[in-house]
């Protein structure tokens, strides 16, 4: 039997923040700036506001089905077969997402830091770390997150404070010169990437120890994560300007390179990269862990850990073949965002609507609402 996988609310909060910040530091500034240039920060705010709505909806959805994972919910509402098919699509999506995180790390490392290292080496090492984490179980992952969270906050604050002197308020001008459509297009990425992906937490909520997660304890970390996104996008525009933000593949890294306090406190980018790596790692681990749980439930396995090793090889392979090169991966952005939104729409509002219809037909016998 697998060991207990229960975690407490505090740990869930930390995981939520890590998940939302996730891999966004790598590419979100450049995605939003490509749509609305110097108004990218407004896009980010729009995205976060809409995103908070989506997050609340996901939370509301979860309270209708206490103690159930998304897979259970799908099967209960749609029946064993249809629910299983929908769940399979969702699980595939989780696997792709997790692998893409690994690929992002691989691309970054071989672009900026170790240019002559074969990417497969980076992917292999990162996937191996993910494998170990998955095998140790969610409580260990959550405790790791707690340990690193302090460091994450400190490094993030350092990044923010040290970049304030480098910022150029002129870069924001002219204010709000883009029309609503362009701003929404920038916000669209913010909505898709962290917020629609929050459905993965529907796989984790049943693993909470004792108490249920209240709305406040769910939305607070989501809000912090959203604030971090807005901050990073705004800083990137302020420090690099809209052109650089849009055209640097890793604008946050280039931004960290700019730090220079009195000509001695500089070249901190390698340290600050730890931050980006950490949040990406946790996002990857959460996605892959949710995938494992999903498969376990879907196929009625007794211990998810048997999946770890084959999964490791799958991730390593998928991360390598998911894109032929860095250009293709980045050009996938809009399509990937649409995929996230479709997954969200198909899972939450659709399943919820089905649930409402079915419970009305069968006289409220199904759901607990």
């Amino acid at each position, binding site marked *: 039997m697998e060991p207990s996988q229960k975690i407490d609310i505090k740990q869930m909060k930390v995981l939520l923040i890590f998940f939302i910040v996730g891999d966004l530091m790598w590419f979100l500034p450049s995605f939003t700036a490509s749509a609305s240039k110097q108004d990218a920060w407004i896009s980010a705010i729009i995205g976060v506001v809409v995103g908070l709505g989506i997050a609340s909806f996901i939370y509301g959805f979860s309270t209708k089905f206490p103690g159930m994972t998304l897979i259970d919910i799908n099967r209960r509402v749609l029946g064993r077969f249809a629910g299983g098919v929908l769940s399979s699509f969702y699980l595939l999506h989780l696997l792709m997402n997790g692998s893409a995180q690994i690929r992002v790390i691989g691309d970054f490392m071989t672009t*900026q830091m170790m240019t*002559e290292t*074969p990417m497969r080496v980076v992917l292999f090492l990162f996937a191996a770390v993910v494998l170990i984490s998955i095998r140790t179980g969610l409580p260990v992952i959550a405790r790791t997150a707690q340990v690193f969270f302090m460091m994450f906050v400190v490094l993030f604050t350092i990044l923010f404070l040290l970049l304030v002197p480098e910022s150029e308020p002129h870069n924001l001008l002219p204010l709000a010169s883009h029309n609503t459509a362009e701003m929404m297009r920038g916000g669209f990425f913010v909505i898709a990437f962290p917020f629609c992906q929050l459905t993965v937490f529907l796989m984790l909520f049943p693993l909470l120890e004792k108490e249920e997660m209240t709305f406040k304890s769910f939305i607070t970390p989501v809000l912090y994560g959203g604030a971090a996104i807005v901050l990073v996008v705004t800083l990137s525009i302020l420090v690099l300007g809209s052109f650089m933000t849009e055209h640097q593949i890793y604008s946050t890294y280039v931004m960290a390179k700019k730090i220079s306090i009195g000509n001695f406190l500089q070249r901190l980018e390698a340290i600050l990269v730890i931050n980006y790596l950490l949040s990406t790692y946790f996002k990857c681990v959460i996605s892959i862990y949710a995938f494992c749980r999903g498969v376990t439930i879907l196929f009625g396995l007794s211990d998810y850990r048997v999946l770890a090793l084959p999964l490791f090889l799958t991730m390593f392979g998928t991360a390598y073949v998911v894109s032929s090169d860095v250009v293709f991966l980045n050009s996938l952005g809009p399509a990937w965002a649409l995929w996230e939104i479709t997954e969200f729409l198909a899972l939450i509002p659709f399943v919820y609507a089905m649930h409402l219809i079915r419970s009305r037909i069968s006289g409220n016998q199904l759901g607990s609402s």
Partner: protein
Amino acid sequence: MRFMKQSLLLLLVLMTIAPLTTGCWNRRELNELAIQLGTSIDKIGGQYRVAVQVVIPGEVSARASSSGFSPVTLYHATASTVFEAFRKLTETSSRKIYSAHIRVLVLGESLAKDGISEVLDMFSRNPEARTDFYLMVARNTSAMQVLKTLTSLEKIPAENLFYALDTSAKTWAPTTTVTIEKLIEQLVTEGRSPVLTGVKMIGNTQRGEELSNVQEIDPAAQTRFIGLGVFRRDKLVGWLNEEQSKGYNYISNNVKSTAGHMKCPNGGIIGMETLRNYTKTQADIVNGKPIITLKVKNVSSITDVECQIDLKKPETIAALEHESELKIEGIMKAAVEHAKQTYGFDIFGFGHELYESHPRVWEKEKETWNEQFKQLEVKYEVEVKIHKIGTTNDSFLNYVKE
């Protein structure tokens, strides 16, 4: 037995980890690197000649006594792309060039006239190089020649160029520093054009390469920064002289501190030091026409009096402030007029200011902006404050007796 099993397992784990912890894949030791500090690029017959100034560690180390050789060496190679030329350097260099510590990039004048964008892409794409080096254009000489001059206060000539420009930009109005990011930003921004400081050789150029150059008190050959090069798109179109460069830097808010002089009311001149300067460019629409207002706030002090003037009277200070305001206005005006007449396009980035404050007007005007620039109305609002006059009040000049 259990202990045995555990230790065996531990051993196995350690053996597995060992190959993974060998450090970077492509590690490079310090003694395998040629640290590049200065770079120059010339265009010769459609090809790029890249020269790099590489430091010789033994010669600049504080502990080891110098053996009397040059502290740096120069490698150069010519190829169709800059990166190829860099690699081709290994034909002469024993080590691979390590570009992370680059301080200056000197561009040849002919290259600058043909366009610099193609060369710059490599520097912004290459992950190794830092982007905080300064760019400059060699004037009346090849870029490579600039790197060939030995200097004494800074042992490494590239460091000398870097710090000379850095100090000069901070304390002397006609020069300014440009990093590659700033340059690219200016190149891609509508309504903006870049400038680069020019560097030229003075004295006996050939002697500069010899070690005897640094054995003299007054070196036979030196490098000197002179004037700003004006670019249209990415092509060098002309040079500003010292006064015009001053004006450009005042307008672009590049002046931090500088020295100047002005006429006294009764003849003679009086020297001034600018302690702080801030210029704000404002674009307004008046009667449907764009008007640029340059608001200068300047704090100066008097450094030397070379005329008959009574510095004990408050009215004198007010008069000097006014005189100084006129002087700065005159410098800026001359630069603007020169740009209007000689270049006929907006070298100051006024168009960008208009875009920042009136984006919709700019959309309409941008096609004809350079034509409009020739008739553009520019207003000057200069405010000079003189708070200090040095340690003496009235100059002894007023009391010199036979």
